[in-house]
């Protein structure tokens, strides 16, 4: 049995194919704005224009034909509406035309399932950090529950906003990391954590105010140290509170080496297992949608419409 998965919640259009055991293909293309942030309609246009080409590529990489596919899974949310609806419409079209079962997958749960697959961890706490999402998620009582999250903006979003103050191109994360390595002096920044929730927007406001008084290296160094400390602290609280034995970081911001180093150190100190997952599967991708679609293949879903605010704890987990 083969599942084809479509991801389109934000910048990336991704197509993945799995037989439930292996990932047979995982192709994608990311829309990059010339300047500034994401323009939803442009991202959607980008996704529509590449959809059929990427689906063909994924099929040929896995040596399959569309007729071999049994289930079409798509990212149902959360996400930005214009790009989000692309995977829904493409999935619907294929499903109706070729008579295939359609499965709507929660994007955040898909990140968690692919992380479980690649780390081998049965029941980890997951820190999911991307442009729009910043959440601490773990399994409890039949659902994936959000134990902590940002009360305002996502961490990737914060990095991009700060990046713009210094004319760093989108996505700003990698360049911020490179410059931060040269920073030495720690500048105290708003450290805002309540229980397992964090607020991040105060840091942007703060940096706007001090940006001309310090070296950029020190500002970006302090930015990373402050924000990542908050995220790791919230994660540690969730690990302690839920009594879990493993921890994984995923999402686009998981590419940051310093964040991983901090996660690893925290786990070492409390004797919790830690693993990174390959970036190919940490960023948004179609394989995670396909794989989660495979896990959910027996679900009977009534509501397949895109949900921009789709919560992880809306989905009853019946397969574990």
């Amino acid at each position, binding site marked *: 049995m083969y599942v084809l998965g479509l991801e389109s919640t934000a910048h990336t259009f991704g197509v993945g194919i799995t037989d439930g055991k292996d990932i047979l293909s995982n192709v994608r293309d990311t829309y990059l704005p010339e300047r500034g942030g994401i323009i939803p309609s442009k991202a959607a246009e980008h996704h529509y224009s590449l959809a059929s080409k990427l689906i063909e590529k994924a099929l040929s990489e896995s040596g399959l034909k569309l007729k071999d596919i049994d289930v079409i899974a798509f990212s149902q949310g959360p996400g930005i509406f214009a790009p989000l609806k692309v995977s829904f419409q493409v999935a619907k079209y294929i499903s109706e035309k070729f008579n295939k079962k359609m499965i709507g997958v929660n994007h955040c749960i898909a990140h968690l399932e692919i992380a479980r697959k690649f780390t081998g961890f049965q029941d980890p706490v997951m820190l999911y950090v991307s442009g729009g999402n910043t959440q601490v998620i773990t399994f409890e009582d039949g659902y994936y529950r959000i134990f902590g999250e940002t009360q305002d903006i996502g961490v990737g979003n914060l990095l991009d906003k700060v990046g713009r103050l210094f004319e760093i191109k989108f996505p700003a994360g990698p360049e911020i990391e490179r410059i931060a390595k040269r920073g030495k002096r720690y500048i105290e920044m708003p450290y805002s954590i309540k229980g397992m929730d964090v607020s991040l927007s105060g840091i942007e406001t703060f940096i706007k105010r001090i940006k001309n008084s310090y070296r950029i290296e020190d500002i970006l160094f302090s930015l990373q140290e402050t924000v990542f400390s908050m995220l790791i602290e919230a994660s540690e609280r969730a690990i302690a509170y839920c009594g879990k034995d493993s921890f994984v970081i995923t999402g686009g911001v998981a590419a940051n080496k310093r964040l991983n180093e901090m996660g690893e150190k925290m786990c070492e100190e409390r004797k919790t297992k830690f693993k990174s997952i390959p970036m190919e599967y940490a960023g948004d991708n179609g394989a995670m949608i396909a794989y989660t679609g495979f896990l959910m293949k027996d679900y009977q879903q009534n509501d397949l419409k895109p949900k921009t605010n789709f919560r992880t704890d*809306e989905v009853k987990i019946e397969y574990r």
Partner: protein
Amino acid sequence: MKIMSVGAESKVFLNGNEIIKDRIKKGYRIAELDKKLRISRTKLEFKILNKCYSLGIRVPRPIKLSKSLTKIFMEYLGNKTLKDNFNIKYLNDAAMMIAKMHNRGIIHGDLTTANMIIKGDKIYLIDFGLGYFSQKTEDKATDLFLLKNALKAKHTKVYKRAYRSFLENYKRYSEEYEKIAERLEEIESRRRYIDQG
């Protein structure tokens, strides 16, 4: 000295009839930030304990701060929690204390029945590790919201009756109950909205 518990940010030791709460070093944070956070949080917690104690709210009697400013010495109250020995009478008593705390702008930040200790026939509030000072209605309402969720999760069978009784007593001592109740409802509907997507 016996180790009592290890939390995410501190270790608690028992020494005779004293408790020592030690905020431990976190190697993942740079030393400068780590030290700053541990000291400021320990000082704040000690200050809140002192304030509560002087207001006659039953909390462990604060004894002293360590020289490092990262440890609090306080009175040991035993380990009989309301969580394991649930009784509405004690919860009503706690409601009175929480209302008085809120009147004075003290937020507990982690209200659960595990953080309420029964000693003799009295109830005590412990663990102000996430506490802070605030007169914001939102913060007080959030404090109550957390307790409501904790009751629902841990005392499911009696939760409705317990929570109603808690609110009645809280109302009796609160100086701004109407505002807080209104905000509490708002927080809940916000939450419902999010839960529904």
